[in-house]
Protein backbone atom coordinates (compact mmCIF):
# COMPACT_ATOMS: atom_id res chain seq x y z
CA UNK A 1 0.00 0.00 0.00
CA UNK A 2 2.84 2.34 0.89
CA UNK A 3 4.60 1.53 -2.37
CA UNK A 4 1.35 2.16 -4.23
CA UNK A 5 1.05 5.55 -2.57
CA UNK A 6 4.60 6.43 -3.63
CA UNK A 7 3.91 5.32 -7.19
CA UNK A 8 0.57 7.13 -7.46
CA UNK A 9 2.05 10.30 -6.02
CA UNK A 10 5.02 10.21 -8.42
CA UNK A 11 2.86 9.61 -11.50
CA UNK A 12 -0.02 12.00 -10.89
CA UNK A 13 0.15 14.25 -7.83
CA UNK A 14 3.82 15.20 -7.98
CA UNK A 15 4.31 14.59 -11.69
CA UNK A 16 7.96 15.20 -12.47
CA UNK A 17 7.23 17.47 -15.40
CA UNK A 18 4.11 19.34 -14.45
CA UNK A 19 4.39 19.72 -10.69
CA UNK A 20 8.11 19.40 -9.90
CA UNK A 21 9.42 20.99 -13.14
CA UNK A 22 12.19 18.48 -13.67
CA UNK A 23 13.31 17.72 -17.22
CA UNK A 24 11.56 20.65 -18.90
CA UNK A 25 14.24 21.16 -21.58
CA UNK A 26 13.70 17.80 -23.36
CA UNK A 27 9.98 18.15 -22.60
CA UNK A 28 9.82 21.22 -24.85
CA UNK A 29 12.62 20.13 -27.18
CA UNK A 30 11.54 16.67 -28.35
CA UNK A 31 7.78 16.84 -27.99
CA UNK A 32 6.88 17.93 -31.51
CA UNK A 33 5.94 14.40 -32.60
CA UNK A 34 4.30 11.57 -30.66
CA UNK A 35 6.85 8.96 -31.84
CA UNK A 36 9.91 10.93 -30.68
CA UNK A 37 8.17 11.82 -27.43
CA UNK A 38 7.43 8.14 -26.86
CA UNK A 39 11.07 7.17 -27.49
CA UNK A 40 12.31 9.89 -25.15
CA UNK A 41 9.77 9.02 -22.46
CA UNK A 42 10.65 5.31 -22.51
CA UNK A 43 14.38 6.09 -22.36
CA UNK A 44 13.83 8.45 -19.40
CA UNK A 45 11.64 5.93 -17.55
CA UNK A 46 14.25 3.20 -18.01
CA UNK A 47 17.22 5.31 -16.95
CA UNK A 48 15.33 6.78 -13.98
CA UNK A 49 14.47 3.32 -12.65
CA UNK A 50 17.98 1.92 -12.94
CA UNK A 51 19.66 5.13 -11.77
CA UNK A 52 17.48 5.15 -8.63
CA UNK A 53 18.51 1.58 -7.81
CA UNK A 54 22.23 2.06 -8.49
CA UNK A 55 22.60 5.40 -6.70
CA UNK A 56 20.81 3.97 -3.66
CA UNK A 57 23.33 1.13 -3.40
CA UNK A 58 26.31 3.41 -3.96
CA UNK A 59 25.04 6.03 -1.54
CA UNK A 60 24.31 3.64 1.34
CA UNK A 61 27.10 1.09 0.97
CA UNK A 62 29.95 3.24 -0.29
CA UNK A 63 29.42 6.93 0.45
CA UNK A 64 27.61 6.68 3.81
CA UNK A 65 29.80 3.90 5.19
CA UNK A 66 32.95 5.84 4.32
CA UNK A 67 31.52 9.09 5.69
CA UNK A 68 31.57 10.70 2.26
CA UNK A 69 27.85 11.51 2.15
CA UNK A 70 28.59 15.10 1.14
CA UNK A 71 30.05 13.89 -2.17
CA UNK A 72 26.66 12.57 -3.30
CA UNK A 73 26.10 15.16 -6.02
CA UNK A 74 29.42 14.56 -7.82
CA UNK A 75 29.03 10.80 -7.43
CA UNK A 76 25.45 10.65 -8.72
CA UNK A 77 26.06 12.67 -11.85
CA UNK A 78 29.13 10.57 -12.67
CA UNK A 79 27.19 7.34 -12.15
CA UNK A 80 24.36 8.54 -14.35
CA UNK A 81 26.55 9.74 -17.20
CA UNK A 82 28.79 6.67 -17.21
CA UNK A 83 25.79 4.34 -16.91
CA UNK A 84 24.13 6.02 -19.88
CA UNK A 85 27.33 5.68 -21.88
CA UNK A 86 27.57 1.98 -20.97
CA UNK A 87 23.96 1.34 -21.98
CA UNK A 88 24.62 3.03 -25.29
CA UNK A 89 27.60 0.78 -26.03
CA UNK A 90 25.72 -2.32 -24.91
CA UNK A 91 22.64 -1.54 -27.00
CA UNK A 92 24.78 -0.90 -30.07
CA UNK A 93 26.32 -4.36 -29.68
CA UNK A 94 23.35 -6.43 -28.48
CA UNK A 95 20.29 -4.92 -30.08
CA UNK A 96 20.84 -2.61 -33.05
CA UNK A 97 17.06 -2.27 -33.49
CA UNK A 98 16.58 -0.94 -29.98
CA UNK A 99 19.66 1.25 -30.43
CA UNK A 100 18.10 2.78 -33.53
CA UNK A 101 14.96 3.57 -31.55
CA UNK A 102 16.51 4.83 -28.31
CA UNK A 103 20.09 5.66 -29.26
CA UNK A 104 19.64 9.33 -30.08
CA UNK A 105 17.94 10.06 -26.76
CA UNK A 106 20.49 8.40 -24.51
CA UNK A 107 23.24 11.06 -24.69
CA UNK A 108 20.64 13.64 -23.60
CA UNK A 109 20.03 11.75 -20.36
CA UNK A 110 23.17 12.94 -18.58
CA UNK A 111 21.95 16.52 -18.59
CA UNK A 112 18.31 15.75 -17.89
CA UNK A 113 17.44 17.10 -14.47
CA UNK A 114 14.65 14.54 -14.00
CA UNK A 115 17.24 11.77 -13.66
CA UNK A 116 19.56 13.54 -11.23
CA UNK A 117 16.48 15.00 -9.56
CA UNK A 118 14.94 11.64 -8.74
CA UNK A 119 18.17 10.32 -7.23
CA UNK A 120 18.64 13.43 -5.10
CA UNK A 121 14.99 13.29 -4.00
CA UNK A 122 15.36 9.62 -3.02
CA UNK A 123 18.33 10.52 -0.89
CA UNK A 124 16.67 13.58 0.69
CA UNK A 125 13.46 11.74 1.61
CA UNK A 126 15.42 8.69 2.80
CA UNK A 127 13.63 6.02 0.77
CA UNK A 128 14.85 2.43 1.12
CA UNK A 129 15.95 0.33 -1.88
CA UNK A 130 12.47 -0.85 -2.91
CA UNK A 131 10.89 2.58 -2.38
CA UNK A 132 13.66 4.30 -4.36
CA UNK A 133 13.28 1.96 -7.31
CA UNK A 134 9.48 2.26 -7.34
CA UNK A 135 9.77 6.04 -7.03
CA UNK A 136 12.15 6.14 -10.00
CA UNK A 137 10.00 3.84 -12.10
CA UNK A 138 6.74 5.64 -11.31
CA UNK A 139 8.36 9.02 -11.83
CA UNK A 140 9.51 7.82 -15.24
CA UNK A 141 6.01 6.58 -16.08
CA UNK A 142 4.58 9.96 -15.10
CA UNK A 143 7.16 11.63 -17.34
CA UNK A 144 6.26 9.30 -20.21
CA UNK A 145 2.56 10.00 -19.76
CA UNK A 146 3.00 13.78 -19.64
CA UNK A 147 5.39 14.03 -22.60
CA UNK A 148 3.27 11.80 -24.89
CA UNK A 149 0.03 13.63 -24.08
CA UNK A 150 1.81 16.95 -24.54
CA UNK A 151 3.23 15.85 -27.91
CA UNK A 152 -0.32 14.97 -29.00
CA UNK A 153 -1.47 18.48 -28.11
CA UNK A 154 1.50 20.10 -29.86
CA UNK A 155 0.92 18.14 -33.05
CA UNK A 156 -2.49 19.77 -33.25
CA UNK A 157 -1.26 23.26 -32.32
CA UNK A 158 1.28 23.05 -35.14
CA UNK A 159 -1.45 23.54 -37.76
CA UNK A 160 -3.41 26.17 -35.87
CA UNK A 161 -3.40 29.85 -36.53
CA UNK A 162 -1.42 31.24 -33.60
CA UNK A 163 -0.62 34.88 -32.89
CA UNK A 164 2.83 35.52 -34.42
CA UNK A 165 4.52 36.42 -31.13
CA UNK A 166 3.19 33.30 -29.47
CA UNK A 167 4.60 30.91 -32.08
CA UNK A 168 7.01 28.30 -30.78
CA UNK A 169 7.80 28.25 -27.07
CA UNK A 170 5.12 30.60 -25.68
CA UNK A 171 2.16 28.67 -27.08
CA UNK A 172 3.73 25.37 -26.02
CA UNK A 173 4.18 26.74 -22.50
CA UNK A 174 0.53 27.85 -22.45
CA UNK A 175 -0.53 24.33 -23.47
CA UNK A 176 1.69 22.96 -20.69
CA UNK A 177 0.03 25.27 -18.19
CA UNK A 178 -3.40 23.88 -19.17
CA UNK A 179 -2.03 20.37 -18.62
CA UNK A 180 -0.61 21.43 -15.25
CA UNK A 181 -4.07 22.70 -14.25
CA UNK A 182 -5.54 19.32 -15.23
CA UNK A 183 -2.92 17.47 -13.20
CA UNK A 184 -3.55 19.74 -10.21
CA UNK A 185 -6.90 17.99 -9.92
CA UNK A 186 -5.06 14.95 -8.60
CA UNK A 187 -3.53 16.82 -5.69
CA UNK A 188 -6.83 16.74 -3.83
CA UNK A 189 -6.60 12.96 -3.61
CA UNK A 190 -5.13 11.95 -0.29
CA UNK A 191 -3.87 8.40 0.07
Amino acid at each position, binding site marked *: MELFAIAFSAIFVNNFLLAR*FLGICPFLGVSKKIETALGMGIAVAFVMTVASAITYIVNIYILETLGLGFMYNIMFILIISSFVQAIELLLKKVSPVLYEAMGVYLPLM*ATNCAILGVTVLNR*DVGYNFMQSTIHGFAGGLGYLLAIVVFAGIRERIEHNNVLPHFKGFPIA*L*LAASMMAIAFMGFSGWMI
Partner: protein
Amino acid sequence: MSKISGISRIPRIFKNGIVENNPLFVQALGMCPALAVTTSATNGLGMGVATTSVLVCSNIAISLVARFLPANVRIPCYIVIIATFVTMLEFMLEAYMPALNQALGIFIPLIVVNCIVMGRAEAFANKNGAFLSAFDGLAMGLGFTAALTVMGAVREILGTMSIFGITISETFPQTIAMILPPGAFITLAFLMALINYVRGRTA
Protein backbone atom coordinates in the same frame (compact mmCIF):
# COMPACT_ATOMS: atom_id res chain seq x y z
CA MET B 1 44.55 37.27 -26.74
CA SER B 2 46.09 40.28 -25.03
CA LYS B 3 44.40 41.82 -22.04
CA ILE B 4 43.91 45.20 -23.71
CA SER B 5 41.82 43.96 -26.58
CA GLY B 6 40.05 41.69 -24.08
CA ILE B 7 38.86 44.62 -21.99
CA SER B 8 37.34 46.29 -25.03
CA ARG B 9 35.15 43.22 -25.53
CA ILE B 10 33.61 43.41 -22.06
CA PRO B 11 30.72 45.79 -22.85
CA ARG B 12 29.70 43.56 -25.74
CA ILE B 13 29.85 40.49 -23.53
CA PHE B 14 27.51 42.12 -21.03
CA LYS B 15 25.08 43.29 -23.67
CA ASN B 16 25.08 39.82 -25.20
CA GLY B 17 24.52 38.04 -21.89
CA ILE B 18 21.85 40.28 -20.43
CA VAL B 19 19.87 41.50 -23.45
CA GLU B 20 20.61 39.98 -26.83
CA ASN B 21 21.13 36.38 -25.77
CA ASN B 22 19.35 36.36 -22.44
CA PRO B 23 19.72 32.74 -21.35
CA LEU B 24 16.13 32.29 -20.23
CA PHE B 25 13.99 34.49 -22.45
CA VAL B 26 15.92 34.24 -25.71
CA GLN B 27 17.89 30.98 -25.57
CA ALA B 28 15.27 29.16 -23.46
CA LEU B 29 17.94 27.54 -21.28
CA GLY B 30 17.61 26.76 -17.60
CA MET B 31 13.86 26.40 -17.74
CA CYS B 32 13.53 23.94 -14.85
CA PRO B 33 14.77 26.21 -12.06
CA ALA B 34 13.12 29.20 -13.73
CA LEU B 35 9.71 27.54 -13.51
CA ALA B 36 10.15 25.83 -10.17
CA VAL B 37 11.66 28.36 -7.78
CA THR B 38 10.16 31.66 -8.96
CA THR B 39 7.26 31.57 -6.51
CA SER B 40 8.54 34.89 -5.12
CA ALA B 41 10.93 37.59 -6.27
CA THR B 42 13.29 36.79 -3.39
CA ASN B 43 13.56 33.13 -4.36
CA GLY B 44 14.14 34.05 -8.01
CA LEU B 45 16.89 36.48 -7.04
CA GLY B 46 18.49 33.90 -4.73
CA MET B 47 18.47 31.19 -7.37
CA GLY B 48 19.89 33.63 -9.93
CA VAL B 49 22.75 34.68 -7.65
CA ALA B 50 23.49 31.04 -6.76
CA THR B 51 23.64 30.06 -10.43
CA THR B 52 25.77 33.12 -11.26
CA SER B 53 28.36 32.25 -8.62
CA VAL B 54 28.68 28.69 -9.94
CA LEU B 55 28.81 29.97 -13.51
CA VAL B 56 31.64 32.44 -12.83
CA CYS B 57 33.72 29.90 -10.89
CA SER B 58 33.20 27.07 -13.38
CA ASN B 59 33.92 29.35 -16.35
CA ILE B 60 37.22 30.45 -14.80
CA ALA B 61 38.28 26.90 -13.86
CA ILE B 62 37.30 25.42 -17.21
CA SER B 63 39.01 28.15 -19.23
CA LEU B 64 42.22 27.43 -17.28
CA VAL B 65 42.21 23.65 -17.74
CA ALA B 66 40.47 23.35 -21.13
CA ARG B 67 43.67 23.06 -23.17
CA PHE B 68 44.89 20.08 -21.10
CA LEU B 69 41.71 18.03 -21.49
CA PRO B 70 41.49 15.39 -24.26
CA ALA B 71 38.63 16.33 -26.55
CA ASN B 72 36.57 13.17 -26.14
CA VAL B 73 36.42 13.19 -22.34
CA ARG B 74 36.02 16.93 -21.89
CA ILE B 75 32.29 16.81 -21.05
CA PRO B 76 32.70 14.46 -18.04
CA CYS B 77 35.58 16.67 -16.86
CA TYR B 78 33.38 19.76 -17.08
CA ILE B 79 30.66 17.97 -15.15
CA VAL B 80 33.05 17.09 -12.30
CA ILE B 81 34.34 20.67 -12.13
CA ILE B 82 30.83 22.10 -12.08
CA ALA B 83 29.63 19.54 -9.52
CA THR B 84 32.52 20.48 -7.23
CA PHE B 85 31.56 24.15 -7.24
CA VAL B 86 27.90 23.26 -6.72
CA THR B 87 28.78 21.15 -3.67
CA MET B 88 30.80 24.06 -2.25
CA LEU B 89 27.89 26.43 -2.86
CA GLU B 90 25.53 24.01 -1.13
CA PHE B 91 27.67 24.02 2.03
CA MET B 92 27.87 27.82 2.01
CA LEU B 93 24.10 28.16 1.70
CA GLU B 94 23.47 25.53 4.36
CA ALA B 95 25.76 27.36 6.76
CA TYR B 96 24.89 30.99 6.12
CA MET B 97 21.45 31.08 4.48
CA PRO B 98 19.49 28.02 5.65
CA ALA B 99 16.13 29.65 4.84
CA LEU B 100 17.03 30.24 1.19
CA ASN B 101 18.54 26.76 0.98
CA GLN B 102 15.25 25.35 2.26
CA ALA B 103 13.23 27.35 -0.27
CA LEU B 104 15.36 26.36 -3.27
CA GLY B 105 15.52 22.72 -2.17
CA ILE B 106 16.78 20.21 -4.71
CA PHE B 107 17.31 22.91 -7.31
CA ILE B 108 20.66 23.80 -5.71
CA PRO B 109 22.20 20.34 -6.37
CA LEU B 110 20.50 20.42 -9.77
CA ILE B 111 22.56 23.45 -10.89
CA VAL B 112 24.95 20.69 -12.04
CA VAL B 113 22.63 19.83 -14.91
CA ASN B 114 21.64 23.43 -15.67
CA CYS B 115 22.15 23.80 -19.42
CA ILE B 116 23.41 27.39 -19.03
CA VAL B 117 26.49 26.37 -17.04
CA MET B 118 27.41 23.54 -19.39
CA GLY B 119 26.49 25.65 -22.41
CA ARG B 120 28.85 28.50 -21.49
CA ALA B 121 31.66 26.04 -20.74
CA GLU B 122 31.27 24.55 -24.19
CA ALA B 123 30.51 27.74 -26.11
CA PHE B 124 32.80 30.27 -24.45
CA ALA B 125 35.09 29.17 -21.60
CA ASN B 126 37.01 26.49 -23.53
CA LYS B 127 37.95 28.96 -26.28
CA ASN B 128 38.77 32.08 -24.24
CA GLY B 129 41.04 33.12 -21.40
CA ALA B 130 40.09 33.12 -17.72
CA PHE B 131 39.63 36.89 -17.62
CA LEU B 132 37.03 37.10 -20.37
CA SER B 133 35.40 33.83 -19.28
CA ALA B 134 34.80 35.27 -15.82
CA PHE B 135 33.02 38.26 -17.34
CA ASP B 136 31.04 36.05 -19.69
CA GLY B 137 29.89 33.97 -16.73
CA LEU B 138 28.97 37.12 -14.83
CA ALA B 139 27.04 38.57 -17.78
CA MET B 140 25.09 35.38 -18.49
CA GLY B 141 24.47 34.92 -14.77
CA LEU B 142 23.15 38.47 -14.44
CA GLY B 143 20.88 37.94 -17.44
CA PHE B 144 19.53 34.79 -15.83
CA THR B 145 19.17 36.53 -12.44
CA ALA B 146 17.27 39.42 -14.01
CA ALA B 147 14.95 37.03 -15.83
CA LEU B 148 14.26 34.96 -12.70
CA THR B 149 13.65 38.06 -10.58
CA VAL B 150 11.19 39.47 -13.12
CA MET B 151 9.36 36.14 -13.27
CA GLY B 152 9.33 35.86 -9.49
CA ALA B 153 8.08 39.44 -9.13
CA VAL B 154 5.24 38.93 -11.63
CA ARG B 155 4.13 35.72 -9.96
CA GLU B 156 4.42 37.16 -6.47
CA ILE B 157 2.49 40.32 -7.34
CA LEU B 158 -0.34 38.45 -9.05
CA GLY B 159 -0.35 35.51 -6.65
CA THR B 160 -0.06 37.16 -3.26
CA MET B 161 -0.24 40.92 -3.97
CA SER B 162 3.17 41.55 -2.47
CA ILE B 163 6.71 41.99 -3.72
CA PHE B 164 9.91 40.88 -1.95
CA GLY B 165 7.61 39.97 0.93
CA ILE B 166 6.14 43.49 1.25
CA THR B 167 2.36 43.64 0.89
CA ILE B 168 1.12 45.96 -1.87
CA SER B 169 -2.61 45.76 -1.52
CA GLU B 170 -4.86 44.16 1.07
CA THR B 171 -8.07 44.43 -0.91
CA PHE B 172 -7.11 43.51 -4.47
CA PRO B 173 -8.00 39.86 -5.16
CA GLN B 174 -5.11 37.39 -5.11
CA THR B 175 -4.75 34.77 -7.83
CA ILE B 176 -3.31 31.84 -5.90
CA ALA B 177 -2.91 29.83 -9.12
CA MET B 178 -0.05 32.11 -10.16
CA ILE B 179 2.23 30.77 -7.44
CA LEU B 180 1.16 27.17 -8.18
CA PRO B 181 2.68 25.16 -11.08
CA PRO B 182 0.27 26.36 -13.84
CA GLY B 183 1.12 29.98 -13.04
CA ALA B 184 4.78 29.30 -13.74
CA PHE B 185 4.05 28.14 -17.29
CA ILE B 186 1.60 31.00 -17.95
CA THR B 187 4.03 33.66 -16.67
CA LEU B 188 6.94 32.38 -18.75
CA ALA B 189 4.70 32.06 -21.85
CA PHE B 190 3.49 35.65 -21.63
CA LEU B 191 6.92 37.07 -20.79
CA MET B 192 8.46 35.24 -23.77
CA ALA B 193 5.69 36.45 -26.06
CA LEU B 194 6.22 40.00 -24.78
CA ILE B 195 9.95 39.76 -25.48
CA ASN B 196 9.22 38.44 -28.99
CA TYR B 197 6.90 41.41 -29.52
CA VAL B 198 9.46 43.97 -28.32
CA ARG B 199 12.24 42.37 -30.37
CA GLY B 200 9.98 42.35 -33.42
CA ARG B 201 9.37 46.05 -32.91
CA THR B 202 13.02 47.02 -32.63
CA ALA B 203 14.50 44.64 -35.19
